[in-house]
Structure formats: C-alpha cells, structure tokens
C-alpha cells in the first residue's frame, strides 16, 4: 500500500549560501541552528554583515542558540516560539529590498509555516531555500475530522480527534504544511493493516 511518485510531496535540497543575493534572511528552528551556522560561514567575508539577518527559535526541540551567538556571526534574534519568529520575519520582509534570499532550516511544519507567511508578503518560493532537520515524522491532518497529529512515524496511525485508523498519504499541502490522513478500513471496518515505518 503505497503511492509512488506523488508530485505534491516536497523535497528539501538543503541550504547553499547565495553570494549574489543582496540581502540574506536566515530562519531556523531547534537543530536547524547548525545549518544556519554553516550557511553563515559561507556568507561572512563575501556579504556585508548589515545585509544578514538571523532569526531562531528552539521551538519544541532542543535549544542550539549558542551555536548562533558566536562572536563571528551577526547577533541573532532568538524567540520562544514560531509565532514570534514569523512576526520578526514580517518586520524584516516589509523593509526588504529586491534580491532578498531566505534560508529556512527546521522541522517540516516549521519550514512551511515560515514559507507561507513569507509568500503572503510577496516572496517567491524560488527565493526561499529549505533544509529539513531536527524533529522528523510527518504532520498529518485527518481529512474526516480535521485534527492534526504531529510527528507521525508510521504508515497507519489512530487519529487523536475521531479515533479512526488513518493511512498517511504522500499527498502534501504546502499551505498547511501537512500530509493527508484517510480512513484505512472504510471498506472493511476493523481490518487495519499492520503499520509500517513511514519514510520521512
């Protein structure tokens, strides 16, 4: 039971310093600090420090902010949660110049929440790099009761909202940052296949 090649499943190519950009906005969550630091190492020396902004939150993961507060990096803005990061990002983007490049590193829901908010302010998705790191597992929304389950790591799970057993599809909504979960035993109630490990 799989759906090979579903085209809505996103990929995460990783962060690559773009020295041709005129402004750099780096946004990270939890373990994403390491990816941001690597990107900063590539930018410093070629890009003017005034053109670099770093936003970070430990989110629900581990706090690696000390990686980013090293003296050689521009002072990061550290927030407690995603919402504060987005507010800070909106402030930066409102004053942003043409040629702004964004680098986003964190969990899948974090990445897509940031991208969605950035796109609402006119950022093109092509100008936003992404690297997935830290907490794995998928966020899945139940198509029946709309409850979102976090960090689902198996092909089948029980919805915490309606208690139906759901199959996790590869169909992904960038708008919500979630995969779709659909009742697995609708055609044969009670016949729930053995869950398998889900590829992240």
């Amino acid at each position, binding site marked *: 039971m799989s759906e090979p090649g579903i085209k809505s499943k996103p990929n995460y190519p990783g962060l690559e310093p773009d020295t041709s950009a005129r402004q750099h906005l780096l946004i990270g969550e939890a373990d994403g600090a390491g990816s941001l630091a690597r990107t900063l190492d590539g930018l410093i020396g070629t890009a003017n420090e005034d053109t670099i902004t770093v936003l970070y939150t430990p989110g629900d993961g581990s706090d690696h902010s000390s990686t980013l507060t090293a003296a050689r990096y521009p002072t990061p803005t550290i927030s407690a949660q995603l919402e504060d990061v987005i507010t800070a990002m909106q402030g930066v983007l409102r004053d942003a110049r043409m040629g702004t490049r964004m680098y986003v590193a964190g969990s899948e829901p974090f990445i897509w929440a940031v991208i969605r908010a950035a796109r609402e302010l006119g950022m093109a998705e092509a100008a936003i790099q992404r690297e997935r790191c830290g907490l794995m597992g998928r966020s899945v929304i139940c*198509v029946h009761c709309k409850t979102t389950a976090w960090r689902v790591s198996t092909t089948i799970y029980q919805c915490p909202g309606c208690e139906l057993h759901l199959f996790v599809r590869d169909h992904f909504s960038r708008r919500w940052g979630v995969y779709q979960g659909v009742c697995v035993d609708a055609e044969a109630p009670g016949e729930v296949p053995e869950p398998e490990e889900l590829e992240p």
Partner: protein
Amino acid sequence: MGNEASVAVPEVKPVETFRDDFTFANSPKAIRRFPFPFTEDSYMYSVNIEPHNGGPAGSPYAPAFDIDEHYLSEVEERRKVLAEDPSRCTVLEHMMPAQWDTLELLMESLSTDYPDYFVLTRDGDQWTWENRLLGIKDTFTFGDPDTLPYEPFEYITRQVQGDFTLHDQRDNMLYMDGGMLTCQADWSLQFDLGMNFYEWHGPVPRAHEMGVFERALKYLLNLRVGEPVRRLNWTMTVHPRMDTSPENYHKWGIDRATVTPENVGDYAHLRVELQSLYRLPRSNAVLFSIRCYLISLNELVTIPKWAKRMHRVIKTLPEDLADYKGFIGYRPMVVDYLAPFDDGAELTPGAAPE
C-alpha cells in the same frame, strides 16, 4: 456557447435523493442524453480537450452550463452538504474579482440558454436575478458583496448543478484558489486549496509520466476569454451518491463492499464529469466547471451500444487505473454483469447511442 435554438427546455423533476434511500433515477430521456464517455473499446488517458462551443440539440454539450431534470435534487443535495460542512465552499481572499466574473458568466449563460427559467435584468450596476425554478428574485449591486446573502461565488453556484473551482494564474502556473465542491470524486478542496496544477494532480497515477499534465497546463494557460473548452472524465460510484468526498469516505467507503452479483446492476453507477473551462475577463482567472452525471448499469444497458462498449472498456482497463478509480474490488462483477449484453459485434465509432 449554447444558444436558444439548440438547448431544450428540461422538464425538472421533484426532489430525489443522493443519500440514505437513494431515490435518484434517470428518465428514458435522461438516459439517451447521458454523456457516455467511451468513443473506443478501450480507455487510456489523453489530453482530450475540445472547444466547448455547443453540440447536438438537447445534448448536455449544447448549453454553456447544462440544467437537466435533476436540477432541484442537486441543488437540495448541495444545500445539505454545505449545512454539514460549510468549508466545502471556500474562496481565497484575493479571488473576489473572479467571484464576480463567475457570477456574471453563470447568470448571463443561464438566462441566455434557459430564458423560461432564469432572467437577468441589468440597470447599470443594479442587477436583478430571477431564478424561477427556485423561486428566487434578488436585486443587488454588482461589485458589492454586502448586497447578496452569500459571497457572489457561493450565491450563484448554490443555484447551478455541478462543482466549480477557481484558478488564479501567476508565473505561468494555475493555482487552486477557491471552489464549491459538494459532488466531487474523492478529492478535498480544503486540503488542495492553494496548490499548483501539478500538486493537486499529484495523486493521479501514470498521467504525470505520460506528460499529460504538462501538455494540459500549457493548453490551459493560453485559454482565451469567450473560447471555453471541455473534456469528459469518468469513474464508478456505488449508489447514486453525489457526495463521494474524502471527508465522508469513512461513511461511504463501505458501500464498495456491499456490491454483489445480484445487486450490481442497481448499485454500480458510471459517474461522468463534463468538465468545462472558462477564462474569466476581469480577473484573468480560470473557472473550472465539473458537471457530474450518474447512470446505473441497469439504465446504461438499455442502450445496446453502450452496454457492449462499457463491457470492453471495463474488462481491459489497467489495474492501476481501476484501483485509482476505486472499483477494483467489484470490477469482476461489473464485467460479468455486462458480458451477456456484448455479442462481440463491431461498434460504430463515437459515443452516440445510435
């Protein structure tokens, strides 16, 4: 576009149901005008798009938007679905100009094709819309959503058969930025909202690799105002159930396990979507109309040519398509039911009933 001469005035039946007791049925006249989709003895994907510029008198291709004997039933079914789940009609905020475009296109088309049923009177931006089938007469200010009981897109699509989606066009791409979806073939508007053309077609097997979507998108990006196009799509549904949404799959999925050799002629329905696409003039958005028709196998076999062709198509359909279309489980019963109607005779080309 349709015109008065070729569009027959439908005799609209009292309300029938698409759920619970399933009283829906097609009259002999409705059977003969059913948009049977198979022009050959086998089926595979293709970019089967053609101009939507009318068709034989009385056929569903003649008007811009087909109104038939099931009008009242489908309007009532839509009302029920929306009462349970208002999110089935959702339009993103930036699509308001496309909402008004849709309202104008539907009101103009319906009042032109069915002047006995729909009347549009315009006095500057003061419009009066009369829908005699539903007993509606509303005067509103075109461009001012506060003068209508619903937003313009929802207001008008509550009065028309079939689903509708609205697509913004940006950067050579179409986006799913709104829709009214109460009779969909197992896909979720709420989940797919905001997706681009490739993403929302993500789950469809084979067609990506065949390059079908690339060609279709290229074609649709160049769609011009006043030159709508159409295609047919199909699947199978157990019972005449309009709302085969993923949202309610846990309720209707079980139907697929209830098909038996004895009831298959009554239970199994061919579900055909007459899809038409319009470029909207102000917003440059694309309106996608998905008009759904249902016919039971018992009704279908009253047309001998269709019985034979349906038998051949279903028998030879590749496994992955039967699986995707959701009837792989009861396909053998459909084939066995149809087999006695097929003498193997060569059929005339095309889908017409003869």
